[in-house]
């Protein structure tokens, strides 16, 4: 039973109307970055392009890609196209090294963001009748506040619960009769486990109707488990800080891919090796150009997420293009409980720590439903063997540094030198046991 509610009639435009709006907005965005962002101006000039060269949507492919490294090279605010006084909010996500990726929003960007998330939560089934509990961590992460704003926009009553403190989460769900849960799929499964432990059947004793899951990928098997355990209807949604945050795309109740809000986020699929633009239905890397943002417009951002696009008719009535479930990444980024982690961030911490060797191994595994990470390093300096105290302090130091950079707790294991494998070719330092376990 697909709900007919649609937040904004702009989600149902004819293809031609979309193309018209997209071209108009693309042109304005190209002008904006060329005139206000030196980094883009230089990139355009390198390719010998002027804003005037963009006359059709097909000209999009003439434009340079933007990658995560551009954020690092212009850290913190070099890609912004407005002076600081016009910004009203900052957020940040993981960088590939110690510095985060900083993003910013103008007042209009905030309105756009609210609108985008309002569309997504409406697609998922949420209305003003709902009480929505947000169990994403609040803070620099765009997920929590992004959903918070969009849910308020549709009139749902928001409980800004944040993550962790699971028993209290369940108490709130019970007492406030929460009907919509917003979290990562793995944390939702973990919460259900804890609920059962304290004698609560999430499907019978609680009032959940909708599950809006994001921040990490999930499988159809996980969806089924979430639906059965919680007795709710789950959808997934997609976004990233570099583009805005949540609200880029989301599933409607027909569950046939995530509708991209393409009147504001122009999608392409490329071959990650060659950069060539691929056609409808072909699998490749998702590239998005933000065509309505003021503070931080981004041209052809390489998301590194592997998916495909489908333009065929959806029974929900929306005509926006849909992206398939993310099949994987074209880089080595790991997602742990919704937190993006790059091995390069870990490497940087280890290299700058005295007493340990340059070789390391990252093991990612599941403990119950929760993602855990272990970093194995070689002890190079025998002086630490003087006493357990010294050894433990070194261990704690590495742990604390990782926590600062990654924002999560890693288990640190010190081993004898030359224990870890050496690589002559491309090093394979990450062992993701979650994939094994999922099979």
């Amino acid at each position: 039973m697909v709900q007919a509610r649609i937040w904004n009639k702009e989600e149902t435009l004819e293809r031609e109307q979309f193309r018209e709006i997209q071209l108009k907005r693309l042109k304005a965005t190209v002008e904006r970055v060329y005139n206000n962002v030196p980094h883009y101006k230089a990139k355009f000039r390198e390719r010998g392009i002027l804003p005037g060269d963009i006359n059709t949507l097909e000209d999009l492919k003439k434009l340079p890609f933007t990658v995560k490294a551009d954020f690092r090279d212009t850290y913190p605010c070099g890609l912004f196209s407005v002076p600081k006084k016009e910004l009203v909010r900052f957020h940040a996500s993981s960088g590939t090294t110690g510095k985060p990726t900083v993003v910013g929003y103008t007042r209009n960007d905030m309105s756009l963001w609210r609108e985008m998330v309002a569309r997504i939560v409406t697609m998922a089934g949420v209305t003003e009748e709902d009480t929505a509990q947000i169990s994403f961590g609040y803070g620099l992460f765009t997920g929590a506040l992004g959903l918070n704003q969009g849910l308020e926009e549709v009139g749902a009553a928001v409980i800004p619960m944040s993550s962790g403190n699971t028993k209290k989460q369940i108490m709130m769900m019970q007492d406030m009769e929460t009907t919509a849960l917003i979290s990562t799929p793995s944390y939702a499964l973990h919460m259900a486990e804890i609920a059962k432990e304290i004698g609560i059947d999430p499907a019978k004793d609680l009032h959940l109707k909708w599950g809006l899951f994001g921040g990490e990928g999930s499988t159809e098997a996980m969806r089924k488990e979430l639906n059965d355990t919680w007795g709710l209807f789950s959808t997934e949604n997609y976004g990233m800080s570099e583009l805005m945050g949540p609200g880029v795309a989301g599933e409607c109740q027909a569950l046939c891919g995530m509708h991209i809000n393409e009147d504001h986020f122009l999608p392409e699929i490329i071959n990650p090796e060659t950069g060539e633009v691929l056609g409808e239905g072909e699998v490749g890397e998702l590239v998005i150009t933000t065509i309505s943002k003021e503070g931080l417009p981004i041209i052809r951002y390489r998301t590194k997420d592997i998916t495909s696009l489908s333009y065929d008719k959806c029974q929900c009535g929306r005509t926006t293009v849909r992206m398939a479930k993310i099949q994987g990444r074209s880089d080595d980024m790991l997602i742990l409980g919704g937190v993006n982690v790059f091995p390069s961030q870990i490497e940087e911490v280890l290299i700058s720590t005295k007493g340990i060797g340059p070789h390391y191994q990252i093991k990612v595994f599941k403990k119950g439903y929760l993602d855990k990470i272990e970093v194995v390093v070689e002890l190079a300096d025998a002086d630490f063997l003087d006493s357990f105290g010294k050894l433990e302090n070194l261990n704690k130091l590495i742990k604390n540094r990782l926590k600062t950079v990654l924002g999560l707790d890693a288990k640190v294991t010190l081993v004898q030198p030359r224990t870890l494998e050496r690589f002559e070719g491309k090093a394979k330092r990450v062992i993701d046991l979650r994939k094994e376990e999922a099979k």
Partner: protein
Amino acid sequence: MAIKQLSILIPNEKGALAEVTEAFCDADIDVRAISVSDTTEYGILRTVVDDTERAVKCLEERGIVAKKSDILALNPEDKKGSLTEIFKLLGQNGINIDYVYSFVVRKNEAQYFVLKVDDLAKAETLLEEKGIEVIKNI
């Protein structure tokens, strides 16, 4: 001339200890004293051998890092309160003891004690003044 001790990081795995002792065995190194303590994550093996330099070399060949440190080896009288006397003496003189282990020397059936302290020279002088035997060679 203090006695040299080796400290070796041991992963919490089966067979990890044997790897070290086997290395010594193959190199004809005699283990005189040994102590292993553990935490949840690792163990540290501490040992006194008859040829420290050769022991370090044979461990290095196997990629095992060992830390050399100077320790005190004592032969206290076998009587009530003799350990208390030693510990008190060091404590009252501001010397901190990191760890202690004991071992038996077969030739004279004496029980020796190994002490790791933060001021070895001072400890040695204090103990000898009190007539406590500090072993120069194991």
